[in-house]
């Protein structure tokens, strides 16, 4: 799983040539890795238990959210320790529309993305005035406040308060012979690929170069005539929309939304996933998602009483071994092997 998760979308990066300063892995190799990754990704649900399919779906959902965070932090240089909020908004949008609006899941997905885009864009406006550490704190404040807002009296009639809302999980349509776990796996896979493709192209486009110019040198970017405010808020919106889609998917996959599902622990988890996967790397998001799902389980295996300490120790170890994240490590290894051959 992890092998596939680290490389499956790697080739995509070459196509857009997003990060010029990086010595790239040859495009051919990336394409081959993508193809192999895709074949494995398609074959897997027919080879493993439903529970594992569910886990893999969760990995992809986290990866989508981390991808969104990556666009914001990795490519635009804006911190966020509050992306759990947008996941929550996406999840609740889907849950509420399905519960009270009689919507089908698929109809709620774009609405969740749109709504999150708007909220993210609006949050991006005040964020413009906040520099790195202050922005990190403001977003963290958002993450801390989210569960309280969700269960507060004014919202309770819609959010179900502390009890949360149960969500119906769609079955495969048109008599496709897949169970609901497999079906949602493929739905998530396709959405994830589309979003990754979009991210790659965005990053490789003029817009992407402007985003990165703002990250690297805002003053020079302004001098080049880039509308910094517009780009920053739009990036915030797009990033939030990614998180919203992840939230929407998670609502139906988990079949339940509750304030306790979206605490600041989730926000911090996404941030950890981003750094571990590799800041500024699109395939790294998948590794980050896998880290989020599997490492707590490993930590718990090591010790029940010290699960938290084990998790912390693993985290430190990973940071030491790959300070540039999994993507950085893979890049370094591949380059080393290639150089030796050459």
């Amino acid at each position, binding site marked *: 799983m992890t092998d596939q998760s680290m490389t499956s979308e790697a080739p995509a990066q070459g196509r857009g040539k997003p990060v010029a300063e990086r010595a790239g892995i040859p495009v051919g190799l990336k394409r081959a890795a993508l193809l192999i990754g895709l074949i494995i990704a398609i074959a897997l649900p027919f080879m493993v238990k439903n529970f594992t399919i569910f886990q893999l779906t969760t990995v992809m959902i986290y990866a989508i959210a981390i991808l969104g965070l990556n666009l914001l932090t990795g490519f635009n240089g804006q911190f966020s320790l509050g992306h759990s909020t947008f996941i929550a908004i996406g999840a609740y949008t889907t849950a509420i529309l399905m519960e009270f609006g009689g919507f089908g899941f698929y109809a709620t997905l774009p609405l969740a993305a749109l709504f999150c885009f708007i909220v993210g864009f609006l949050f991006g406006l005040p964020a413009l005035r906040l520099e790195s550490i202050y922005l990190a704190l403001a977003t963290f404040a958002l993450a801390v406040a989210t569960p309280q807002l969700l269960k507060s009296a004014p919202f309770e009639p819609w959010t179900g308060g502390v*009890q949360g809302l149960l969500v119906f999980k769609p079955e495969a349509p048109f008599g496709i012979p897949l169970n609901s776990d497999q079906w949602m796996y493929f739905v998530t896979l396709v959405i994830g690929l589309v979003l990754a493709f979009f991210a790659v192209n965005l990053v490789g486009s003029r817009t992407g170069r402007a985003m990165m110019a703002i990250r690297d040198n805002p003053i020079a970017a302004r001098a080049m005539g880039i509308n910094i405010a517009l780009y920053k808020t739009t990036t915030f919106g797009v990033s939030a929309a990614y998180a919203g889609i992840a939230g929407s998917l998670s609502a139906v996959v988990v079949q339940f939304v509750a304030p306790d599902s979206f605490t600041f622990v989730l926000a911090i988890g996404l941030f950890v996933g981003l750094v571990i996967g590799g800041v500024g790397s699109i395939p790294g998001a998948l590794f980050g998602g896998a880290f989020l799902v599997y490492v707590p389980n490993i930590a*718990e295996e090591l010790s029940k009483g010290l699960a938290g300490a084990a998790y912390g120790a693993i985290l430190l170890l990973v940071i030491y071994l790959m300070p540039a994240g999994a993507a950085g490590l893979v890049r370094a290894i591949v380059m080393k092997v290639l150089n030796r051959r050459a």
Partner: protein
Amino acid sequence: MIKRSLTVLAGMTALAVAALPASAQTYGPGASDTSIKIGNINPYSGPASAYGTIGKTIDAYFNKLNAEGGINGRQIELVSYDDGYSPPKTVEQARKLVESDEVLFIFQSLGTPTNTAIHKYMNVKKVPQLFVATGATKWGDPDNFPWTMGWQPNYQSEGRIYASYILENEPDAKIGVLYQNDDYGKDLLQGLKDGLGDKVDMIVAEVPYETSDPTVDSQIINLKASGADVLVTIATPKFAAQSIRKVAESGWKPLHIVNNVSQSVGGVLKPAGFENAKGILSTAYTKDPTDPQWADDPAYKEWAAFMDEHYPEGDKSSSFTVYGYAAAQTLQKVLEQAGDDLTRENIMKQAANLNDFELGMLLPGIVINTSDTDFFPIEQMQMMRFNGEGWELFGPVIDGSVGS
């Protein structure tokens, strides 16, 4: 078969086995001649990790049982996972237990939102979600959720008990309520209101707190200012202790009722100060291990010996260890009754077939009863008053059934 013939059968077991068809030796997933695999989900990490003690106690108790030969000759294999009190993770862990580890059932999964997340799944899969560790009322709904059962007295019952006490003894009271702003706090408050019935306007102030509040000082000041003369504190130990101390500090002298969750002498009243805690009312269903009156009680001694031998790093002043111990004993009873018919259906059947079952660490007079229509194992509680050193039980054992 040979093994079974070697096993010394307890009276109850023999009865249960006798009640089954003679050929009965049917196994559901996770059960075999030699072992029974049970799942459990607890928050071992994250902000709610205090509750992890319950999971660890249960594990220790089954280790003890296994060392003594297991149940009906079968070793108990407890697979306990961490969900960090996050509902999506609970779903993942529950599915792992059911689909990958293939446990016979899930026992004592902890928390209301977390159990809600898997409520439907467990019932669709027809896997028992047995004796969940939460006091919400919704777990006792055999018509709609026949595979889910609670264990502890539900919060609403407790609220009703306080209501009837107040109606009887303080009919002219003005009630102030401090409650934790989550399912547990709101449930208990609801019970209190239901119990007051048309006298609900006796409540002059309800003030919530968040677990993220450092102190409840501000809330207590507001409650005092409301003119209340009865204070009902629906709070977890830390905040209950804070409220007891702040009430004393501010020179307010209401009749103070503190909910059962925070009845621990060592874990709440001592930190709050015995002087400050004198006269406080509460209810109980378990024996408080830090209450000196149980020091010579045989059941207490048995529990203490268990703790020393099997869970020495555990905290003997924590009520969670008593809770886990008693819950595990209840399950032991169910498994003994199930005998060799270790199917999921029979587990639920036996869980719903507990009759006047007594547990050493429950208060004298409190018994566990379940039936096809009664999925609330413990429904009785007793009022008690803190005399400055220990709790004094008073009044009858009260049945707080929600329907009653």
